[in-house]
C-alpha cells in the first residue's frame, strides 16, 4: 500500500518535473510565437493570394512576385533604398573605421564622454529625429538655409526635401548622422581590446599608420564590422527609415523606401497580398545581407 502510493507519487512528480521547464519558458516563447513568429510566417501565405485584407482570398501562386519584377514603383523604391543603404551602412562603417582609429589610437582622454554623446541619436524616436531634420532642411527659416545665408553662400539655398535632386540624399544623410556615432562606439570598444604591443612591434618594422590600420586594426575589427553592418542594414531598410521618410517627405520626390511602399500598398491601396510579397522581398534582402556577412566572417575565422 505504502509502496504503491510512493510509486504513484514519484511518477507523478517526475511527470510534473518534465513539464516544469516548459512552464518557465511558456510565456516568453508563447508570446513570441503568437505575436512575432506567427505573423512573420503569415506573410508567406498572404503573398500567394490576391486579397484586399477583408474580402475573399484568391489564390494566384507566385503572380505577386512576378508582378513585382515589372512594377516601376517597386523598382524605384528599391533604387531609393539602395541610396539609404549606402549612406546609412557603407558611409557610416567606412567613416566610423577611420574616425575610431583616430580616436582610440590617439588615446584621447574623455573617450567615454564622446561615446555617450555619439549614442544619443540611438535612443530618440525616429519620428522625433525626422521632425527635427524637417526643420533643419526647411526651405524658409530652415537651419541649413539660414546658415548658408550667414556665411554668404545664398546661391546654395534650396528646398532640400522639396525637390527630387536633393530629397533622397538629404533623407539618407539623416541615416549617416544617426549611425556613424554608433559604429564609432562599437569600433572604439573593439580597438581598445587590441594588444598595444602589436602596434609597437609593427612600428619597429617600419609600418606606417595606414599599414597598421590595414594589417592590425581592420582584421581585428571584422566581428564588430559585421555587427554594425547587420544592425544598420536592418534600420536602413526597416522601421527606422520608414518613420524618417514618412515624417520628412511622406515618401514624395522619390524618397519612398521599400518598407513605406509595402505599407501604402497594404493599408492605403488595400493590396494586402501584394504588399506581403513586398515585405518578403524586403526580408529576403535583410536576411541575405546578414547571412552573407556572417558566412564571410565564419570563413575568415
Amino acid at each position, binding site marked *: 500500500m505504502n509502496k504503491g502510493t510512493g510509486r504513484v507519487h514519484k511518477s507523478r512528480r517526475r511527470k510534473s518535473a518534465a513539464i516544469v521547464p516548459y512552464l518557465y519558458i511558456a510565456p516568453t516563447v508563447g508570446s513570441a510565437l503568437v505575436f512575432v513568429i506567427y505573423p512573420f510566417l503569415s506573410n508567406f501565405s498572404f503573398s500567394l493570394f490576391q486579397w484586399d485584407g477583408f474580402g475573399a482570398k484568391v489564390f494566384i501562386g507566385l503572380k505577386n512576385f512576378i508582378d513585382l519584377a515589372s512594377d516601376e514603383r517597386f523598382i524605384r523604391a528599391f533604387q531609393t533604398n539602395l541610396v539609404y543603404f549606402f549612406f546609412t551602412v557603407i558611409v557610416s562603417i567606412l567613416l566610423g573605421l577611420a574616425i575610431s582609429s583616430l580616436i582610440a*589610437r590617439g588615446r584621447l582622454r574623455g573617450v567615454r564622454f564622446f561615446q555617450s554623446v555619439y549614442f544619443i541619436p*540611438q535612443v530618440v524616436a525616429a519620428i522625433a529625429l525626422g521632425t527635427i*531634420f524637417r526643420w533643419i532642411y526647411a526651405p524658409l527659416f530652415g537651419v541649413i538655409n539660414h546658415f548658408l545665408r550667414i556665411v554668404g553662400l545664398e546661391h546654395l539655398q534650396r528646398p532640400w526635401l522639396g525637390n527630387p535632386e536633393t530629397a533622397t540624399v538629404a533623407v539618407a544623410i539623416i541615416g549617416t*548622422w544617426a549611425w556613424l556615432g554608433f559604429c564609432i562606439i562599437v569600433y572604439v570598444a573593439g580597438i581598445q581590446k587590441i594588444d598595444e604591443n602589436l602596434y609597437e612591434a609593427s612600428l619597429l618594422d617600419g609600418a606606417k599608420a595606414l599599414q597598421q590600420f590595414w594589417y592590425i586594426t581592420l582584421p581585428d575589427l571584422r566581428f564588430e564590422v559585421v555587427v554594425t553592418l547587420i544592425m544598420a542594414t536592418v534600420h536602413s531598410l526597416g522601421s527606422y527609415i520608414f518613420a524618417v521618410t514618412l515624417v520628412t517627405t511622406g515618401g514624395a520626390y522619390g524618397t519612398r523606401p521599400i518598407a513605406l511602399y509595402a505599407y501604402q500598398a497594404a493599408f492605403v491601396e488595400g493590396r494586402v497580398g501584394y504588399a506581403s510579397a513586398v515585405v518578403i522581398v524586403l526580408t529576403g534582402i535583410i536576411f541575405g545581407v546578414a547571412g552573407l556577412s556572417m558566412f564571410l566572417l565564419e570563413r575568415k575565422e
Partner: protein
Amino acid sequence: MSIKKIVGAGSGYFVAIFLALLIVIPFVVMFMGTFREHTDIIRRGPFALPLEWSLENFRRVLFQYNFDLYYINSVLITAPAVIGSLIIALMAAFAFSVMEFPLKRLLLLATISLGVMVAEVFIMIPLFQLMNQLGLVDNLLSVILPSLAMSACFSTLVLRSFFMGLPRELLDSGLVDGASNWQVLWKIYAPIARPAIVTCGALTTVWTWNTYITPLVLIHDPAKAPLPLGLALFQGQYVADVPLIMTGAALTALPPILIYLLFQPRIVWGITQGTIK
C-alpha cells in the same frame, strides 16, 4: 616623434569634438526652438537665443494639443510591456540556462533569432489581421502584446548569457537548502542579475517608448495614440508653427534621453558587450 603624437592626438580631438557638435546641434536647436515663438524664428533666424525662457509652448502642446493623452498612452503601453517582459524573460532565461529539456536548443534558437531579428515592418500586415480577428484594433493591448514579446526575447538573450556565467554551485546550494527552482530564481538569481536587468529594462523601455509602426497600423483613434504616433499626427495638422512642433518633438524625445543619461554606462555596456557576445 612626440610632436607627431601630439599632432595625432590633436587631430583626434578635433574630429571627435567636431562630430560631437554635429550630433548635439540638432538637439540644441530643437530645445532652443521650444522656448521661442514662430514669428521670432522668422525674424531672428533659428540660431538666436530665446527672448524669454517661457514654458508656454510646453503648456499649449501638452494641454491644447493632446500630448497629455499621448503621454498617458505611452506610459500605459511601456510600463506593462517592459515590466511584464522582464518577469517572463527572467523565467525563460533561468530555464534556458540551468534546466535540461527536449527541444531546448530549437526553442532557444527560434525565440532568440526570430524574436530579436524580426522588426515591426516585417510583421505589420499580418499583425493587423491578427489583432483585427482578436478584436483588439484601437486597443492599447494590440501594441503592448507585440512589444512585450519582442522585449522578452531580447531580455531572455541577455539574461541567459548572464546566468550562464554564474557558477553552478549557486543553484545546487540553493536546492540543497530545500528551496525550489522557483525560489532559487527569485531569491538568488534575480537579485544577482540586477545590473543585467537594469540594462534590459532601460533598453526595452526606450524601444517600446519609440515604437511607431505598430501603433500607426493598429491605433486609429487619436485619443489612444502613444507619443511618436501623436507627434506624427500633430505635424499633419499644424504644420506651420515650428516652435510648437519642436516642443512636441522634445516631449517625445526627452523621456528616452533622460533614461539614457541615468543608465548611460549600463546601456552602452549592454550595446558594446551584451549584443556583441
